[in-house]
């Protein structure tokens, strides 16, 4: 076992672990550099006409740098993303995602139209494949399409790779094309051939997605990494058709204090360690945990969704596993 671990982690990767044991909250070297420059350049949050700061885990960084930092994190974890999800959540993330999809129940119904689904921050395609499976298996719908967007080409690359082994990507439309065209040159209109397509997009703008064009907007475990969440919600509102549904699956606040204690201990002690052992990247997982802590609680986030112009029903959210995660749903009225 020990030899296996050392083979996985490698000698090089032991250094960050030692480093992080000394300095409790460390980031990868570039990230630290960026964060420091940011802090030096801009000590006061509102001064000098600068754009203001936002949080990156427990650190405050200038808004324009968060995107780069988050990008680094996900580029670094892209390859081991799925196995780490399984290990960290003991496989429960699969149940959450299945529940999320069955709740949305996507697919063409008798007398209805096939759907256009936009899966934002959908990187590895977890939600997208589940949506298409559901539409095909439950509703016998072979026309509903999913557009997967992510700001990070590395994560999107993983999803594209995985899509090639499913029945949804027809080789001509995704692989060959993507070999010729860079991701960011791929526009919304030239990917109509297959049922799943991938596009690099900043969720705050969704430049290539037309107004009032989508039936369903999903974002699973992505929104907490956005630099400007209200802007992303506004974009979601823009691209959805009237009556379209915004659905978000995200980590949230545990509502049972005894269990919360156990969960916090697990989050801060076990997960970064597992990140170190399995993905050889403690800092990225430290960031993931911190970003979960910084994300607003259920009520606050539901209010943010309403403020963006969505209508919610009841409390506007559903807790999963005592609030470790929550599903928020809003409809464009």
């Amino acid at each position, binding site marked *: 076992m020990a030899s296996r671990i050392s083979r996985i982690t490698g000698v090089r990767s032991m250094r960050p672990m030692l480093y992080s044991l000394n300095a409790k909250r460390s980031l990868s070297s570039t990230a630290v550099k960026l964060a420091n420059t940011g802090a030096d350049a801009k000590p006061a949050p509102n001064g000098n006409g600068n754009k203001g700061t936002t949080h990156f885990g427990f650190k405050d960084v200038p808004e324009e740098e968060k995107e780069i930092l988050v990008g680094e994190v996900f580029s670094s974890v892209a390859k081991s993303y799925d196995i780490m999800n399984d290990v960290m959540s003991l496989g429960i993330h699969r149940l959450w995602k299945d529940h999320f999809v069955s709740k*949305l129940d*996507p697919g063409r119904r008798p007398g*209805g139209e096939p759907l256009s689904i936009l899966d934002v921050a959908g990187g590895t395609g977890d939600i997208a494949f589940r949506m298409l499976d559901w539409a095909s298996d439950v509703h016998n719908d072979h026309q509903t399409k999913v557009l997967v967007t992510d700001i990070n080409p590395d994560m999107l690359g993983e999803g594209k790779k995985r899509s090639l082994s499913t029945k949804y990507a027809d080789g001509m439309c995704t692989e060959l094309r993507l070999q010729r065209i860079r991701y960011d040159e791929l526009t919304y209109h030239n990917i109509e051939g297959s049922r799943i397509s991938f596009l690099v997009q900043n969720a705050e703008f969704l430049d290539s997605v037309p107004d009032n064009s989508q039936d369903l907007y999903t974002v699973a475990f992505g929104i907490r990494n956005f630099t400007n969440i209200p802007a992303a919600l506004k974009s979601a509102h823009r691209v959805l058709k009237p*009556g*379209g*549904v915004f659905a978000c699956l995200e980590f949230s606040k545990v509502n049972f204090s005894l269990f919360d204690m156990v969960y916090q201990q697990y989050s801060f002690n076990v997960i970064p360690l597992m990140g170190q052992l399995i993905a050889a990247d403690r800092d990225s997982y430290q960031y993931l945990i911190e970003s979960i802590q910084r994300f607003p609680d259920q009520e606050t986030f539901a209010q943010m969704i309403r403020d963006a112009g969505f209508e919610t*029903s*009841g409390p*506007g959210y559903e807790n999963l596993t005592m609030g470790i995660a929550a599903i928020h749903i809003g*409809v464009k009225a």
Partner: protein
Amino acid sequence: MFTSTHLRSPVCKASSTILNSARLYHAVSHLPPSPYTPAQARILSSALTHVPEHGFVKDALVLGCRDQGYLDSTHAVFHNGVFDLIQYHLYSERTKLAQHKDKIDAETNDLHERVKRYCVERLKANAPVIKRLPEALAVMGLPPNVPASLEELAKLADEIWYLAGDKSSTFDWYTRRASLSAVYSATELYMTQDNSTDFKNTWEFLDRRLENVAHLKSTLGSSSTWIAFTGMASINLLRSQLARG
């Protein structure tokens, strides 16, 4: 319209869409706001018109969205799916009971007769969906839905006693509501299996249950008198025995 001496349970905990406007007391002049937005109420009412044909299922909800010009996917906004549709049926029929107040007040002065009349009105409202009601009851009986279902039953019993003009301020307040809940749910179950014309058997069943409750009350009353008398007598007997030595 209603006198302020009537006691009524306050709106305790409302869903958070109306949290800001919900009050912890009940005031006749400030009725609690609807937990549904106008758009949601429209969708759910349209969906209910599809229940006799499709049943309490998600398809009815989807058709309701379609009728109101929304997309098929809009149904996802209702977090509890079919249970939200059922709850809307219960909520809307409960609030509609107040429409019968003037008529029932004019016809009878007897409190228990009024309670019976309200029960009949409420059960009649189930008639259009009665063949589908067992589906709804099954969904209401699912463990996650049980608390909300019981809460709705309690609210219905409270509404009926309140409209009938109940002024009890003792422990009776609770027993009346509890016994009416039991009677109402039993009658509703009976009604799902009733094939008589215009639910004649159901109304007779309801009469018998209400009589039982009255009877039970007098039985309880006389038993407690008997227990008290016998208890006192035994203590006195013991005392006299001890005094004798």
